[in-house]
């Protein structure tokens, strides 16, 4: 009896202790959750880890998957070989953009290889029930333009696409990055990829931008400071007043080019500007779902005291309109500057090779250099704001006679805005023509190629050798700089032409 009683007592006792320990642990976890400062990146990443593999990668859940005609056919074939299907077709969206023509889109595509890839995208999408915005569809356009403008891209999401400029979508506070063909197959079949978590970097730009300085200049400036490989292995958060005051279009331009400094991607905390942009877009949540989402989105910011593996801070006042003079996006300078002298050391030979390709010399002034082609478009600068900026300078002026200009909206929706806002009239009056949406001269997979040896001021993102056509010489710049070049025929400081 006594023994039994003691046993019960001790049972009670250990149960009580167990309870206390559990309570303590619960409160400790609560405390930890609310008191360990974490970054925006951590919050979104950690919320998508299905399983963490010891001595291996994370199984990482993908909310949105974009596909296009070039990198998806082999992935679909892989599915078929394995007898797999698409797990969540409603989470994948297809658009044709990379090798589509930018004139006469109503006619059959001439290049058989391109036509083949476009057909494959259409067939695969239909077969698996994926929404497909092919050529001629009113929602068609560059994948990184149509995602956001249709409300598919939302804060806190994980977004991938077989294209390195998927980083664009980070502007909404999403984790977005490019993947390889095998990974496209993984996402189609399981909505996950296997990824080790990257390191974290924060780049702050404080103060306010000077007249004529655009988001493109901000990002070209950052890359020129960090170099084209300076953020390799990192995921970047852009923070500070300059980004807080930036439009969504501008934030997309910045995040788009985070890959050009080697980063896996870049992101910006969502705020009122973000919510306002999203609200009412076709696929954006509505009603109660909107309220619920909004409550969550408002928690998506880096807590005070959260730590980064690396941090840089720049001053907005130091940035002027930028232009590149070499063959990687890190080789950029303020437009009024001279091309820097090469430094002694291992990089000297490749620096010289690069200038040689461009036909430039050390200490040349950039202002006044002859321009043959102007390209306005791409997923970097193919949104309405970019055409407004371009029009603000060409208005009342004429295109320089020797300049060939390709003005290419990022999507049909942008094209429509250009017409509705009267921008088309301004362009036409100044002697410019508007082409149809697509990647166009950004990568010259279609007919829009800059001829060998010619100079192009381009609003796209890569100035690699041959990127815009074999032998093409690309100078990356903002739509304002592109406009100034288009009307004067030479590299010109846009501030001189601004009211």
């Amino acid at each position: 009896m006594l023994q039994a009683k003691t046993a019960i007592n001790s049972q009670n006792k250990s149960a009580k202790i167990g309870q206390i320990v559990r309570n303590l642990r619960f409160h400790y976890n609560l405390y930890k959750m609310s008191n360990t400062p974490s970054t925006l990146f951590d919050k979104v990443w950690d919320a998508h880890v299905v399983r963490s593999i010891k001595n291996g990668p994370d199984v990482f859940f993908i909310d949105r998957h974009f596909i296009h005609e070039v990198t998806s056919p082999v992935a679909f074939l892989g599915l078929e070989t394995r007898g797999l299907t698409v797990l969540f077709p409603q989470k994948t969206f297809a658009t044709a953009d990379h090798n589509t023509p930018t004139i006469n889109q109503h006619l059959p595509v001439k290049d058989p290889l391109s036509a083949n890839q476009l057909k494959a995208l259409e067939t695969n999408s239909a077969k698996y029930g994926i929404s497909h915005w092919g050529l001629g569809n009113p929602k068609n356009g560059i994948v990184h333009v149509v995602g956001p403008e249709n409300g598919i891209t939302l804060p806190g999401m994980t977004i991938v696409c077989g294209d390195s400029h998927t980083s664009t979508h980070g502007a909404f506070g999403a984790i977005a990055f490019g993947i390889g063909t095998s990974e496209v197959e993984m996402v189609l079949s399981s909505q996950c990829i296997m990824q080790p978590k990257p390191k974290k970097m924060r780049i702050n730009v404080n103060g306010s931008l000077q007249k004529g300085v655009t988001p493109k200049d901000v990002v070209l400036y950052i890359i020129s400071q960090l170099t084209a490989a300076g953020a390799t292995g990192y995921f970047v958060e852009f923070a500070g007043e300059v980004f807080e005051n930036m439009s969504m279009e501008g934030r997309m331009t910045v995040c788009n080019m985070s890959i050009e400094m080697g980063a896996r991607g870049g992101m910006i905390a969502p705020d009122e500007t973000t919510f306002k942009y999203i609200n009412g877009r076709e696929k954006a949540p509505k009603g109660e779902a909107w309220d619920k989402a909004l409550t969550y989105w408002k928690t998506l910011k880096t807590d005070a005291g959260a730590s980064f593996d690396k941090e840089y801070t720049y001053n907005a006042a130091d940035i002027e309109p930028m232009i590149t003079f070499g063959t990687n996006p890190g080789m950029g300078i303020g437009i009024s500057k001279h091309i820097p002298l090469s430094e002694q050391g291992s990089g000297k030979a490749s620096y010289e090779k690069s200038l040689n390709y461009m036909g430039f010399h050390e200490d040349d002034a950039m202002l006044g250099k002859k321009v043959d082609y102007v390209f306005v478009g791409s997923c970097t600068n193919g949104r309405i704001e970019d055409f407004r900026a371009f029009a603000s300078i060409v208005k009342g002026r004429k295109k320089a006679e020797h300049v060939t200009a390709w003005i290419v909206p990022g999507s049909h929706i942008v094209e429509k805005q250009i017409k509705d806002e009267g921008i088309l009239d301004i362009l036409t009056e100044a002697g410019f023509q508007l082409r149809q949406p697509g990647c166009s001269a950004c990568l010259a997979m279609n007919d829009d190629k800059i001829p060998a040896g010619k100079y192009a001021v381009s609003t796209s993102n890569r100035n690699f050798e041959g990127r815009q056509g074999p032998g093409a010489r690309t100078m990356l710049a903002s739509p304002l700089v592109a406009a100034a070049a288009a009307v004067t025929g030479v590299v010109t400081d846009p501030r001189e032409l601004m009211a």
Partner: protein
Amino acid sequence: MAYDKFTVLTSTAVPMPIENVDTDQIIPARFLKATERKGFGDNLFRDWRYNNDDTPKKDFVLNNPIYSGKILVAGRNFGSGSSREHAAWAIYDYGFRCVVSSFFADIFKNNSLNIGILPVQVSPEFLNKIFTAIEADPKAELEVNLPAQTITILATGEKESFDINDYKKDNMTHGYDDIDYLQSMKEEISRFAAKSLY
């Protein structure tokens, strides 16, 4: 593309004592236009292997009948250059299951592991010993033991161990790739998806 399990591979080897073999050499860019993942083995080392008129180049090792086997032994920094997965596809499709070198480019290593080729990184000294052994006898066999993480020159008994992460080792020994792994946890993924806001 699931592949055969890899546990212990005993085979003769093809020696290619060239350094910095880049993926453009492994499979030239013009063969990437296919929308299928077939027949890349025919174009493995295409420009080293064939003349312009498609006749085999006699002095290239793959055209020398005295060498054969499932192991390719290559010089330092194998697989550098572009990230094309096609390079690994070509090596696998040709019939190799293992590449031995003293250094691999990162992306090539990952791509290989994902499609069932084991990259075995050995010391430069051991690499030389392998080349010497094959030179002495083209029929010399190597034993690559994945569970034990060792590579042995059977003729001399010389042995070295190599590194591989646990997850990838597990995948290789079971003949899984990432897609198989993900398929095996589909229920867990679906439960996860059900809670998702998006």
